[in-house]
């Protein structure tokens, strides 16, 4: 350890003149992703303020924020966000979890693969939003219908990526593990799962994306709460401010889930770079 540290120190001292430059560059790199969204919002505000855009159709960002504040004060905003998040999370956990298990089982067992895979592949090609009428008829318009829809949406990306990750494990590594006396369990834990992890996390990211899009649709079709409902309801009354607010919230929630997925990749896949 001491050696390493001294090594690092050496490296740093030799590159001192680069450090400050690199530091400011890194700062810039961090700000860069915000450049376009922030300037878009500013442009938007200016365009509305100067009446370049009709504010009755596209309200100014400030008006959208004000709407958000007033909806927050009435308690409606928090309530709907909470409910949407609940539906999304439960759907994701159920669907993503089943996808993961199914992917693992089919990836590991040839019998399971032969029995299940072609069925799953067949079902996969049905656009899951086409199931909305069926869901409403079978499960009604309660929570279970919306959650099931999200679950179905999350299942397939999770399944496909897990399955792909498991089946594309380098055979040489498995052979090495076997010849080094690893048990089946150790083989799974030390070699197969870590090897499939990048693909599984990719599945998580896809599933999170599908989770939100499915939820929006599910909530606009049949709900009396949630962000999607807020948006449809606002649409009926031509309440553009609320509509834009809902869009913004979806964007933020989407970004949030992406940040979580990305951080998991940074933590558990740091060996890749």
């Amino acid at each position, binding site marked *: 350890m001491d*050696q390493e540290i001294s090594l690092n120190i050496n490296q740093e001292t030799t590159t001192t003149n680069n450090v400050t430059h690199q530091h400011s560059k890194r700062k810039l790199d961090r700000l860069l992703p915000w450049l376009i969204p922030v300037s878009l919002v500013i442009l938007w505000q200016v365009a509305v303020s100067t009446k370049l855009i009709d504010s009755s159709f596209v309200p100014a960002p400030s008006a959208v924020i004000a709407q958000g504040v007033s909806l927050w004060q009435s308690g409606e905003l928090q309530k709907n966000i909470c409910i949407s998040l609940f539906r999304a999370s439960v759907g994701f956990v159920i669907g993503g979890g089943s996808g993961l298990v199914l992917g693992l089982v089919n990836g590991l067992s040839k019998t399971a693969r032969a029995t299940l895979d072609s069925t799953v592949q067949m079902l996969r090609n049905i656009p899951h939003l086409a199931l909305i009428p069926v869901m409403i008829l079978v499960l009604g318009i309660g929570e279970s219908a919306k959650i099931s829809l999200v679950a179905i949406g999350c299942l397939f990306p999770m399944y496909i990526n897990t399955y792909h990750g498991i089946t594309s494990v380098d055979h040489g590594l498995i*052979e090495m593990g076997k010849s080094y006396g690893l048990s089946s369990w150790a083989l799974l834990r030390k*070699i197969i799962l870590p090897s499939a992890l990048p693909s599984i996390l990719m599945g998580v990211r896809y599933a999170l994306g599908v989770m939100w899009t499915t939820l929006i649709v599910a909530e606009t079709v049949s709900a009396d709460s949630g962000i999607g409902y807020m948006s449809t309801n606002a649409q009926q009354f031509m309440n553009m401010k609320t509509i834009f607010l809902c869009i913004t919230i979806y964007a933020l929630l989407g970004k949030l889930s992406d940040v979580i997925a990305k951080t998991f990749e940074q933590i558990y*896949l740091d*060996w*890749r770079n």
Partner: protein
Amino acid sequence: MLKYLTVNNVSKVYQAKTALHDANLEVDRGSFVAIVGMSGSGKTTLLRMIAGLEQPTTGEIRQNDRQVTSINPQARCMFQDDRLLPWMTVSENLTFGAKDKEQRARAQRLLETMELMEFSNYYPTKLSGGQRQRVALARALMDNPELLLLDEPLGALDALTRLRMQDLILKITNEQKITTMLVTHDVSEAVRMANRIIVVKNSQILRQLDNPYQGVDNENGKLRRLELVDEVLDIIYHG
């Protein structure tokens, strides 16, 4: 005297293709055997059967007078691709992530021998090819194997690194008296390292030659080794 390892009339057939035909071989305990031949000659197949990674179609392989029928627990393999686990650090690769104190201490000692101490917390992707193969060697030595099976582990290294690795392997196998079998297409490597050379051609063991000059560091030794290289090459090409 009973030989440490015997290969008796072993054949291996993949579908319609014969990979090895009627191989017979005896290996003394503590000896260093090199198996040379062109690619596709069947030398790797022979090694894999000794490792227990594959089973002979006919014949049998016996080690310590016991038939090898599955993964050979006394043997450890090194492969041409190092097969390090990229998601584990160097030291974790040796212990397979085990938290066991003794194992970790042993891993540290081995890394010291390999002059890899400072990299013990690095991921393999950060290491050079030679360093990675040294990690793989350390991993192979973790469980004190009786038999070390080397499947062209140095094939991808540059000449100088290769020489260093050869010396390192020789030093360790000599010190610890590990029976070693090396598959290589590099005849001079075989002559430099092994005291017995098996020439494989067209899925058959063509010749077995002793190499009494292995490790003999005088002029004569070097000359004799060069002659042996010539002889082996001659067998491979014309035998």
